């Protein structure tokens, strides 16, 4: 990985993305500039269709953008080939999805071990680490259970363990609490906050859920494919003017 001189975890400059062509073309990102720092939990908020998920996808390297530059921990995504981007994601990015995307036929420990296996770790090493991670997220002794036998909150904790098992530097979260009740949502965000505080890490969260705004270090508000405002959050106070 390239040297990260500016302490930016994610550095986005002039990124644009248009879906479709001609009269049906929809521009989702319009020359977006955006930064996320190491050691922070950054939230991207805004109304539906404003481009939050598209921005998250481009930062994660899962969606190609049309113009601009994205550096993630000093590595320029726009200069990478498809296979290099895949390898970069494999090593450096952890994912937490809105719908968890746990594989229903695998046990919790097997689900958690998947990123390590993709990175070429042995099954024994991956499962040992997965057990340790499950214990960290409060699911000790539940590793053999299938996702269907776990509650929504427990499934999300399995997903968090999966996102962390290969020790990625950037954690990408898409609506991590939308399927959870207040209590489980709070526990999930506390966990993510701890992760973000670890050295050399960054957590980027896309959310609509105003109950969790207080866990952010900064909030980036999007409107119509652009960054409208950036808010520093102090003492856990969420800015009331941000739309729900």
């Amino acid at each position: 990985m390239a040297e990260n001189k500016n302490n930016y975890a994610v550095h986005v400059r002039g990124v644009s993305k248009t879906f479709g062509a001609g009269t049906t073309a929809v521009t989702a990102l319009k020359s977006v500039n955006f930064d996320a720092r190491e050691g922070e939990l950054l939230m991207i908020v805004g109304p539906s269709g404003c481009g939050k998920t598209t921005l998250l996808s481009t930062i994660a390297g899962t969606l190609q953008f049309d113009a601009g530059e994205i550096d993630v921990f000093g590595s320029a995504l726009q200069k990478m080939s498809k296979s290099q981007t895949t390898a970069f994601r494999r090593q450096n990015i952890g994912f937490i999805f809105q719908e968890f995307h746990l594989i229903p036929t695998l046990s919790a420990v097997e689900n958690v071990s998947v990123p390590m296996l993709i990175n070429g770790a042995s099954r024994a090493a991956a499962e040992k680490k997965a057990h340790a991670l499950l214990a960290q997220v409060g699911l000790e002794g539940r590793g053999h259970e299938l996702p269907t036998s776990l509650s929504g909150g427990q499934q999300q904790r399995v997903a968090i363990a999966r996102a962390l098992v290969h020790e990625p530097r950037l954690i990408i979260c898409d609506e991590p609490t939308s399927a959870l009740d207040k209590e489980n949502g709070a526990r999930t965000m506390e966990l993510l906050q701890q992760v973000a505080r670890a050295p050399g890490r960054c957590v980027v969260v896309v959310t609509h859920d105003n109950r969790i705004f207080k866990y952010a270090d900064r909030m980036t508000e999007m409107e119509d494919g652009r960054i409208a405002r950036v808010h520093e959050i102090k003492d856990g106070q969420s800015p009331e003017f941000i739309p729900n």
Partner: protein
Amino acid sequence: MYHIALKMLLGNRSKYIVLVSGITFSTLLMTQQCAIFCGLMLWTTGSIQNMRSKIWVTDPKVEQVNEVRQLRDTDVGRVRSVEGTAWAVPLFWGLQQAKLADGTFKQIQLVGLESATLVGRPYDVVAGRIEDVRLPNAVVIDELAIIRLSAGRAKPIGLGDTFEINDREARVVGICRTAKSFFGMPYIFTTYDQALQFAPKTRKMLSFILAEPAEGWTAEATARSIERATGLRAYTENDFFWATIRWYFRNTGIPMSFGITILLGFAVGVAVSGQTFYTFVLENLKHLGALKAMGASDGLLARMLILQALTVGFIGYGLGIGLTSLFGSLVLKKGEPPFMLPYQVPLGALAVVLFICIFAALLGIRQIRKLEPAIVFRG
């Protein structure tokens, strides 16, 4: 990741069962029908198997063993005189009528062996002695004849019993085991001279001449030598075997009929397994997308799909071959329908099953290649 691929497959129990069943049924249909077809084709060469001879001499127009155009008696001497021939003997073969104890008639295949040498004799005599066939009116019957000719008797026909062939008494002096024939009629062996007495008189009675190559001559060379010198047709045993099978291929609807069923088996395999596997991939697309987002390469995901498809293929193939073998073992005990499973049939079926699996996997791989990992962020 390969154990993950297998767990993804085996965990979806209903899809897994449909996939394996599709391949099993397809394999069963293809191999069982091929085996029956091969068995039927083998039956067409029953006479060649029962009257072993290195060279068969026939009328020039004869194309297969079940087609007889009589030769002149003098042709035996002509063949004996050909360079490269060690010896040559006459053989009578013809469909005749046997009258049973209850007055009904059954068709039989009457074989007349040269009385001095008994060349063309059955290879497995299970009761009596083949040499006794030289006794007046003596015949050796095969095991099928016991079933077919016992009607109206208190006990199955056996040694010492008599029946009529074309109004002439025949006495059973031996029982032999023979390969089944295409006509499904029993073989009755007697001497050549007695066969001419049993059969209705015609101008020419000699069906085949069986010959042996001289020392230092191959069967092929002797056959060519006989053809050049006599103008008759001379087949080696192997050539006659394949000429007979080729004739049935070209001149009957049997291959077409079996071919359609075999194609149906293939179509079932492609349709059921291909479609089910494709649906399985589509159902797992979100999970595969998540794996792709997490950094699984297209190559890794493709290998996982191929492993899943091959696992289903090999299990289904094994079950299909097992069922075919079970069918075969039951059928062979009973004797009908015809069944022969040469190694080429399971090998061919394996190739077809592999094709079906690879085809099914390719459908899935195509989806994976098109799959954008960003799909996981869409609701």
